[in-house]
């Protein structure tokens, strides 16, 4: 590895200041589970490492009716949060499916999103909750809807002088539930072949007033399946409707062949897993297909 400088600022202002002063070659580090292997293989060769570990930013709390998840909350923190278990079960399910305990104890939500792997497991559930990434810089703060956050594999809208401080989940409608399903090569320590998150909100008549479907590992970025969502909205839940939404989601995806699976297989699995995730989300609202 090259020999970067290292800084562990005590405050966000200090960290932002360091970023502002070193426009190039600065790398933030949280859990290091993505970054350290990238540094060891020389994919990334920073001149300065800025460690976020003393900044706090790890709380998960209710604010107003929404939920704020600090960027340094680990997968274990998400997994153990009663608040998220109650309001965002699909997010908790995705954290449970990440790697194994030692990685979950270090890896953070901020690192997962900023590393921007198409297979980032927290991304599909956060997309179905309409989450926003809160980005701070010495110029101020901005919120970016997660659907506009990713720009390509490894790419995000984050500027060089910005830090992701938290993920904000707006109030989750009461008559709403969600489900995350990950298909990997094995139960633990596996990158997703396909992952699907789904969320359904029902109106008083029992029809779907709002639907969200998000897919991982089947496009350059974690993506919303907007056409599948449109198929669902305004209709009462049914097995046929969920199957149709699965077919549409499949046609929206654009997976590639890689060492884990062929694109063709992935596309077929999108249909199956979308249908299952929708049925499970509906099941959590008392429905049955």
């Amino acid at each position, binding site marked *: *590895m*090259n*020999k*970067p*400088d*290292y800084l*562990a600022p005590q405050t966000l202002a200090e960290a932002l200041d360091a970023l502002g002063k070193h426009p190039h070659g600065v790398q933030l*580090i949280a*859990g*290091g*589970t993505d970054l*350290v*292997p990238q*540094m*060891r293989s020389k994919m990334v060769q920073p001149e300065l*490492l800025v*460690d976020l*570990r003393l900044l706090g930013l790890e709380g998960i709390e209710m604010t107003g009716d929404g939920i704020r998840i600090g960027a340094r909350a680990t997968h*274990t923190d998400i997994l153990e949060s009663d608040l998220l278990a109650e309001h965002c079960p699909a997010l908790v399910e995705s954290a449970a499916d990440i*790697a*194994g*305990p*030692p*990685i979950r*104890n*270090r890896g953070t939500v901020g690192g997962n999103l900023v590393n921007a792997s198409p297979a980032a497991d927290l991304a599909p559930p956060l997309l179905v909750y309409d989450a926003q990434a809160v980005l701070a810089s010495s110029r101020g703060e901005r919120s970016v809807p997660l659907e506009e956050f990713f720009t390509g594999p490894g790419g995000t809208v984050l500027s060089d002088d910005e830090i992701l401080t938290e993920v904000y989940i707006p109030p989750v409608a009461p008559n709403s539930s969600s489900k995350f399903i990950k298909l990997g090569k094995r*139960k*633990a*320590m596996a990158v997703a072949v396909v992952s699907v998150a789904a969320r359904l909100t029902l109106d008083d008549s029992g029809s779907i007033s709002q639907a969200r479907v998000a897919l991982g590992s089947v496009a350059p970025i974690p993506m919303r399946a907007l056409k599948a969502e449109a198929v669902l909205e305004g209709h009462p839940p049914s097995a046929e409707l969920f199957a149709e939404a699965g077919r549409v989601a499949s046609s929206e995806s654009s997976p590639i062949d890689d060492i884990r699976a062929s694109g063709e297989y992935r596309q077929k699995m999108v249909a199956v897993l979308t249908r299952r995730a929708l049925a499970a989300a509906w099941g959590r609202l008392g429905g049955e297909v």
Partner: protein
Amino acid sequence: MAEINLSFSVNDQKMEVSTEPTRTLLSVLRDDLKLKGAKEACGQGDCGACVVLLDGEAVNSCLVLAVQAEGSQVITVEGLASKGQLHPLQQNFIENWAFQCGYCTAGMLISSYALLMDNPNPNPEEIRAAIAGNLCRCTGYHEIIEAVGKTAADLQQPVLTSES
């Protein structure tokens, strides 16, 4: 870059080390502090041979930069035995044939130890989940799971704490 002075506790002993920021905790433990229990096999988080406790949590020490452990408490497999007495987990690993080559053992012990701190009475499914990040190419895991289950039964209560 100048080296950074690092101060942290390892197996309840205060340590001062001077290190470059890119060195991993694993490398400092093994090469500077000569604690050779934790192993490097994959070096990228996949195998768990390097697992140690960092402030009470099992982590892959090959993915932690040593400088990130400033002010922290690290427990390695060398810290499990006390006063020449093996920890019951270690004793049960021996008695249950829970290792052959031994390469995974330090990590397996620490992951199991972390489990028992949180959950003194785990079922086999919970034991499997706790060692999901630790690969063993020899035993087939069965004996390891039994050894951990047996330790939990042996210890019953009182509960393990991070100080024990």
